């Protein structure tokens, strides 16, 4: 079977899931199975077929599993969002269509994605500008103390970090392709650890500065960690120098600790992380409120091993519209999944992500030039870390920050940016697997 036929077959489970999922929601809502669920399934299958045809026409050798995995996650996301809020789901479906258009556009426009290297400084500057947009007066939108979105009332709202992450990965992959040889030269070994000359720490300092800027200006620990981790992994793969990673992590820890202590919002998030079940913090005191974190845990406890069943999670306080679990379709969607589908459902979602990420790293291994390798490593890492940051926040592994769960959470910027990210991965993969 050719790669493309495997991809086509891979779309079947996604379509079945979306049909079954909508059927489940309808049964739960009205105790009646309407053929609308079949319609949704058919429309979704149609959309995915369009994506598949684009890939078939342009990238015949690309990885056959990535697109079905993305389709699976997105369809699951649509069903979850529909179950939480049906108008949001309609909106999300529109974003998904727009995302597929940009996905196709990316593939067509960057058939030779290596020309991106030519614009690397432009890309870096634009990304930095995007990142800082939320701080511009009149544009920024402060949500819970962090600056994550650009909001033009009545026109649109988007989260520039979602796009900036791709830009920075492209920049660093391209930059290190040129300089990685230099960074490895002239190193000395001290106590078994290879220490490069001090001047070669330049890139570490630059990405560290970027992470600190995000932390300081945007008050966003999660995004900062996501950017920094992904860029550090590119640096590590480019140079094979563990010392960069160790020094980098120490520097991040110190910087985060210092800034955290001086930015009240970050300190509040840490307090909520450490003491989510404190009565005082639960009811909120001095700008600290662990209500969301605590209810994320309560929701997961309610799910247990097998979950309460699809559509059964309590999201608002009955008889009112007061949220029991704030932001259920965005930040907290993992808690809703765990509540309804239990530990097993949550594990299935995490494993699906891991499979997608594995395909990304596989692409990095297969790539024949170092820019392609580093690009695939960076894109896969940033995706993995985004999942880790939000799921880690919901499960209290790390402090909670509002990034989206890629492909599943409600949000136009997220689904569009991540579809573009996958388009780039497929481009790299097609070149890597093309027979010589």
């Amino acid at each position, binding site marked *: 079977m050719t790669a493309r036929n495997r991809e086509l077959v891979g779309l079947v489970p996604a379509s079945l899931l979306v049909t079954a999922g909508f059927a489940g929601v309808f049964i*739960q809502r009205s105790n009646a199975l309407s053929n609308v669920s079949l319609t949704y399934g058919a429309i979704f299958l149609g959309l995915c077929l369009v994506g598949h045809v684009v890939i078939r026409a342009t990238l015949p050798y690309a990885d056959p599993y990535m697109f079905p995995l993305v389709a699976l996650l997105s369809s699951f996301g649509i069903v979850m969002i529909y179950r939480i809020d049906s108008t949001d789901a309609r909106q999300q479906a529109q974003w998904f269509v727009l995302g597929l258009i940009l996905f196709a556009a990316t593939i067509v426009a960057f058939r030779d994605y290596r020309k991106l290297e030519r614009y690397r400084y432009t890309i870096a500057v634009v990304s930095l500008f995007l990142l800082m947009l939320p701080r511009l007066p009149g544009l920024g939108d402060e949500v819970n103390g962090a600056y994550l979105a650009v909001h033009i009332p009545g026109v649109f709202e988007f989260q520039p970090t979602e796009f900036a992450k791709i830009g920075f990965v492209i920049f660093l992959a391209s930059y290190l392709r040129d300089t990685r040889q230099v960074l490895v030269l002239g190193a000395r070994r001290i106590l078994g650890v290879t220490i490069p000359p001090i001047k070669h720490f330049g890139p570490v300092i630059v990405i560290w500065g970027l992470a600190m800027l995000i932390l300081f200006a945007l008050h966003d620990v999660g995004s900062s960690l996501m950017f920094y981790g992904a860029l550090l*992994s590119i640096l*590590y*793969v*480019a140079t*094979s120098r563990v010392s960069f990673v160790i020094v980098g992590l120490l520097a991040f820890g110190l910087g985060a600790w210092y800034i955290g202590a001086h930015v009240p919002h970050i300190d509040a998030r840490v307090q909520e992380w450490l003491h989510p*079940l404190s*009565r005082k913090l*639960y009811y909120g005191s001095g700008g600290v409120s662990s209500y969301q974190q*605590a209810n994320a*845990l*309560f*929701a*997961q*406890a*309610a*799910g*247990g*091993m*097998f*979950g*309460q*069943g*699809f*559509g*059964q999670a*309590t999201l608002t*306080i*009955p*008889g009112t519209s007061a949220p*029991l679990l704030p932001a259920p379709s965005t930040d907290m969607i993992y808690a809703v999944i*765990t509540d309804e589908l*239990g*530990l097993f459902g*949550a*594990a299935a979602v*995490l494993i699906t*992500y*891991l499979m997608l*990420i*594995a395909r990304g*790293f596989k692409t*990095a*291994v297969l790539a024949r030039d*170092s820019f392609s*390798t580093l690009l695939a*490593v960076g894109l896969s*890492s940033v995706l*993995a*870390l985004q*999942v*880790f940051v939000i*799921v*880690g926040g919901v*499960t*209290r*592994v790390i402090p909670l920050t509002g990034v989206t769960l890629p492909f599943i959470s409600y949000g136009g910027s997220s689904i569009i940016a991540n579809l573009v990210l996958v388009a780039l991965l497929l481009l790299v993969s097609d070149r890597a697997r093309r027979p010589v």
Partner: protein
Amino acid sequence: MNAPIARVFALIIVLFALLLVWTSRWTVFDAQSLRDNPLNARTVIDEEKIDRGEILADDGTVLARSVKGPDHTFTRTYPTGSLFSQAIGYSKVKTGQQAGLELSDGQYLRGVQTGLSAIVGQLGGGTQVGDTVDTTLDPKAQALARQLLTGRAGSVVAIVPRTGAVKVMFSLPTYNDNHPTAAGPDISQLNGATQDADTPGSTFKIVTVTAALDSGKFTPTSDVNGDSPRIISGVPLENDSNQSWGLQTISTALTYSINTIFAQLAQDVGRATMTEYMKRFGFYSKPPLDYPPNELTPSEPHSLTTNKAYPPASPDEDIGRIGIGQGGLEVTPLQMAMVAAAVANGGKLMVPHLTDQVVNPDGQTIDTIKPTLYSRVMKPSTAHDVSQMMQNVVEEGTGKPAETLGISLAGKTGTASIGATGSNLTEPWFIGFAPATDPKIAIAVTIDRTDDGYGGTIAAPIAAEIMKLLLSELHG
């Protein structure tokens, strides 16, 4: 560059493993403590989403049912209002308050399934529907008890001696379980039948005479001196109207409720034996009723100075006065109904119960409360003798006012003085069973406080009427 790529991917696998470990921490390992956390509103909300089962009377009358509210929630309503409030209790999920059978039968009413059905239920979702609890309570007799008590404070408990099934449990003041938080002078959530322990007076002589006969120290025809006053524990004890009876048999002494004779009996039988028999009747511990433990009060003697309960067989207690139901003894109406039931059932005390059977939503009976022996209080021959004497009480003695209804009863009156010395405040009691020779129902009736009222004149007629109704119901 392949080795570093593998290492980065390995690190990501470790990070995802962390996510899984933490997810299982909240969903499995710490789940119970999170569900029990008082901050967790889900516990209450989920409880509100349960369609609790109905509570039914023995004739199928609905005593409690769930009404659907907004957002798939349910609230409880009690169609019979205050008539069954104390027996049934209430369940107010929003404030986390529960009482009575609603609390003690909560597991049935919530329909907590175990094993395979729990897992299947969890996978399927949907509303959790509770089981129906059929009780032993008789609505007509309960209504009659309310009618007869109206205007007074008091309690009625009626038990089927052979099974322990509680047919009537009513007391005044009461409350309306549809509005459990309402307060007022005539409103009380205290269940008089199970929680309000008072001086039993002469009804306790049944326990004393049982100990005296069953221990073999006396027979119904033993003669004891009934002169008055008599020094008991260093203080003179008088009979009613300070009447001196001379030598009388124990049987006659019970018929006329002669205090000085029973005080001597208790002293002669001794503290250890008296305590042993009291324990067999259920004293000194909470009654074994299927009811919330904190709504059950043990019946036991208390120090008159500190009002603290004496430990069993305490050397400080005045066993003579305890033998006539004074001396700081405080008992619940439920306990006294158990005393009557034990005698009625040939000396075998059955565990009292309100729950009869549990029926699941499919109509299958999943649990039936079988009659269970609590203790063998006395030999059948002793029970026969005691019940013979209790018949005499009704036919010739203090219980005569209960005789007029054309049913054969056995019983014992009590008139405890409860005010300061010289006041006329009394607490009238009557315990008994019917029909006297083949008992089908045992009862305890008490009126909290009357001005110079006697057990025979006030409590006995109430008991007789309720037993008459119950007997006609049992035959019908």
